[in-house]
């Protein structure tokens, strides 16, 4: 648009400065480290070392994908259910969905320990019934559960917001044209809520695939997700900044590719664009 006034440019200036300093500059630093060796000379050697971490990449993607599918299966019916309620009940439920997000993410993750532990709530209850204890903590299941729990609000909220704006007359029209419930869902509701699904998937998958805290606290440090590998390498000191940056770069590229593919599914440009 041509008529951008000086005023509106000035208004955006603080954020542009922020973004440049804290998004663009760090990205450039990461790229620099990823593509140089310890002496600062350009090299692709770091990228060839990444093969060692393919299992970590694989596990991260697998866990994040499972967590994303579970959140979607839980969140979609929930969002649909919410839109069917009175406005006041919707607000109430929305509040409940968001409530955990007001607590620190680390505390939320930590609280699962007291639920899943051998001496935790579930196993104590099983013990009373003469069962168990079952090793729940420090398993892949616990890690995935942690991801689902921590990120599910990011799935519910975008789907709910798209769904609540759904034009009821379209649903009525489909009914008038003889669509049954399944057809109505498949041909009308699902396509119209797709932008919400896509942005929900992104907002769950991206933080899940790069998490390291959840896997350490609930996984007992027994595996290394790619986020753990990056954290471990950075903590070892500057010797490993190059390889850690290279892994970060590859991870970012993979995420960007995922987002690009997702956006292809989202061809109607009605505000659900992910990036």
């Amino acid at each position, binding site marked *: 648009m041509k008529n951008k006034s000086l005023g509106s440019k000035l208004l955006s200036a603080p954020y542009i400065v922020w973004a440049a300093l804290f998004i663009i500059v760090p990205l450039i630093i990461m790229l620099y480290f990823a593509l140089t060796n310890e002496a600062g000379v350009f090299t692709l050697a770091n990228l060839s070392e990444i093969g060692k971490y393919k299992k970590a990449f694989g596990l991260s993607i697998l866990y994040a994908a499972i967590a994303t599918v579970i959140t979607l299966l839980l969140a979609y019916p929930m969002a649909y259910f919410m839109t069917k309620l009175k406005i006041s009940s919707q607000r109430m439920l929305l509040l409940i969905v968001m409530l955990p997000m007001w607590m620190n993410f680390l505390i939320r993750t930590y609280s699962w320990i007291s639920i899943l*532990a051998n001496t935790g709530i579930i196993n104590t209850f099983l013990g009373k019934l003469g069962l168990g204890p079952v090793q729940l*903590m420090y398993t892949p299941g616990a890690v995935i559960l942690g991801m689902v729990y921590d990120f599910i609000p990011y799935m519910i909220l975008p789907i709910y917001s798209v769904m609540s704006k759904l034009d009821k007359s379209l649903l009525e029209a489909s009914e008038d044209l003889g669509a049954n419930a399944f057809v109505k869902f498949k041909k009308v509701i699902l396509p119209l809520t797709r932008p919400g699904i896509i942005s929900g998937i992104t907002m769950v998958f991206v933080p899940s695939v790069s998490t390291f805290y959840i896997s350490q606290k609930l996984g007992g440090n027994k*595996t290394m997700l790619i986020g753990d590998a990056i954290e*471990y390498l950075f*903590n070892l000191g500057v010797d490993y900044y190059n390889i850690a940056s290279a892994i970060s770069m590859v991870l970012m590229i993979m995420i960007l590719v995922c987002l690009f593919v997702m956006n292809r599914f989202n061809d109607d440009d009605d505000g659900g664009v992910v990036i």
Partner: protein
Amino acid sequence: MKNLKFRSLSLAIIVCIVSLLFSSCGYEYVDLELRGKYDRSLEGTVLTVYNWGEYISDGSDGTIDVNREFEKLTGIKVNYLTFESNETMFSQVENGGVNYDIVIPSDYMIQRMIKEGMLDEIDTTALSNYDLIADDYKGVYFDPEEKYSVPFNVGMVGIIYNGKYIKDIEHSWNVLWDEKYKDMALNFNNPRDAFMTAQILQGTDLNSTNEKEWEAAAELLKKGKKNLQGYVMDEVYGKMETGEAYIAPYYAGDYLTMVETNPDLKFFYPKEGTNIFIDSACILKSAENKAAAMMYINFLLEPDIATANADYIGYASPNTAVINNKDYYYYGNEILYPKKEDMPPVQYYHDIDEKIRRKYELLWIDIKLY
């Protein structure tokens, strides 16, 4: 009349304020005689101390708050930060994000930091309490000329187990691999200590320069991984105290803290031997407040302060004023201060050649991804 009333009222207020000031800021513990030893010439400056977590008497449960006492005595503000491993400390110092004055790393890390020129020399003759340190801990391999470090704590690794669930236990590192204890045992979540458990079992040197020996240790650790509940560091406290895990190798001093909470916990030094360490206070070359750092290090050696720290931390003290103090909580404790004939064979960690260090740091990833 009015005036008099006003005066008596204001007098009353002043008395209240003054008494409040005294009650909140007055000397609670430290002997007044220390006032003569520590002047307030550096009042208002900041001293940044970087130490292990849970490694100073912090005033909880009626103990002495060491940093607070130092602040009161000298007027120096202590900016106290903690780390979880020598390696994290090293990378933070190397990054230079925060200007640390004092760091309290372990032996091998001190050796490395001296080699890399990161530590400033300490004139021990300027420390009036330096002579209190037992000769055994002076001039140890990493600082033979006593130029860079002042011993703060000493400790050895042993195995803690829950006597309520485990009656007879072999006093060996084997227990971490024993399938009898599947999902019950923990191991260290840092490469050096975890490798130690395997190396001692294989009878190899903890500071081996032979890559094959490190690979063999890694293989043994891989084999043991599925038997373990997990790898932890400070979380071991909660795990052992609540009975979440039954076996964990950790430091003798930490066992003494844990057993206070859970009296079922027992401890032994494995017969194959174990690792001994010294954590010592060092001043960084990049320190901005070196004079205050010297004051702080000397303060840590004060008999009352050192005893308070030794009581609180539960590690063995290198300070003779603590060891010989009959009021010291662990006076004569045989786990911290074993008799000569009960001493297991011990090995210090040394700073390892960079090639070997990289080798085991990367082998650790293989173990985790196994």
